[in-house]
């Protein structure tokens, strides 16, 4: 698969996922470029990869984690709910401005693990199995993180901000 085709198929989804994970559009662009450079450097036999989506998101997740690891001493937007909310609001399109803002606020307040699963499931359209494969987790863990995440989001949106939620 050529890089251009690869970008057409997954580029935008990866960019969106990385933006929410890293909390910065610039960082997302840098990491996205690094991911494509990785694909360009190593010849990947795509036909032998059973779940290309899970594979690509796994690569993206690893690269994003590496990026966060390298920047652990710096103040990151991903740990700042306000900045993260702005980024989510900037990258998500909803039925109206108010609900988008509400959703972005709820999503930004979630723990990283739950937010990641919800973004992958709801916005990137991955199945639980694919998310489990991309994140290196069991399907049950993914499903429970999703459920707890939804419940927490609902509570935040309804004004019942629960701080002590199980992860």
């Amino acid at each position, binding site marked *: 698969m050529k890089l251009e085709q690869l970008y057409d198929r997954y580029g935008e989804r990866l960019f969106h996922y990385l933006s929410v994970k890293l909390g910065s559009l610039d960082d997302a662009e840098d990491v996205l*470029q690094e991911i494509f450079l990785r694909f360009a450097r190593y010849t990947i036999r795509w036909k032998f990869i059973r779940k290309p989506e899970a594979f690509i998101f796994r690569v993206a997740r690893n690269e994003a984690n590496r990026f966060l690891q390298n920047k652990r001493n710096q103040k990151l937007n991903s740990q700042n709910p306000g900045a993260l909310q702005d980024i989510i609001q900037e990258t*998500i*399109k*909803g039925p109206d401005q108010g609900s988008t803002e509400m959703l972005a606020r709820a999503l930004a307040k979630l723990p990283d693990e739950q937010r990641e699963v919800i973004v992958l499931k709801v916005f990137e359209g991955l199945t639980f199995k694919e998310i489990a494969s991309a994140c290196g987790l069991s399907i049950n863990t993914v499903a429970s993180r999703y459920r707890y995440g*939804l419940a927490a989001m*609902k509570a935040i949106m309804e004004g019942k901000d629960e701080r002590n939620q199980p992860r």
Partner: protein
Amino acid sequence: MKETNRDESADRNFESFLSEFRPKPAPAWLKERILHRLGEQKHLESAFTPAMRRIAIFCLVFIALMLSAELIMTKSETRRIQALWPPAALDSRQPVEDEFSSIWAEWSGLSTYEKSLFSLRAAEKKTSHQSQGSGVYWQIKILMEELNGS
């Protein structure tokens, strides 16, 4: 039971609410920029740096010198061998065989003591002759030297 059913339907409602949200398309320039930067990066990675280029040129010149020196040495060695043993002695079998039969006649006339003495001295000389060549030629040469008393 009723509580669980209510929870599930609320979850479904919330999921359908979430399904109204979609990621915004990435900026149009992003693809161009990523692919352009990728092209640049690949070009940078594939090209030699000036220092690497200098090392590569030095290595190539060194290899060329080594090969030409080897060629010159082989050629001069061939010339030296040809001067020592003319092609007639090396190539044509007839003179060698003639020489051998005449020596053989003399050899047959030797006593057992002389033959064993010859074998001893031949063994001593063998090493020095072997360094110059091999095969029948050096054996004949030793025999000739022995019989001529050199």
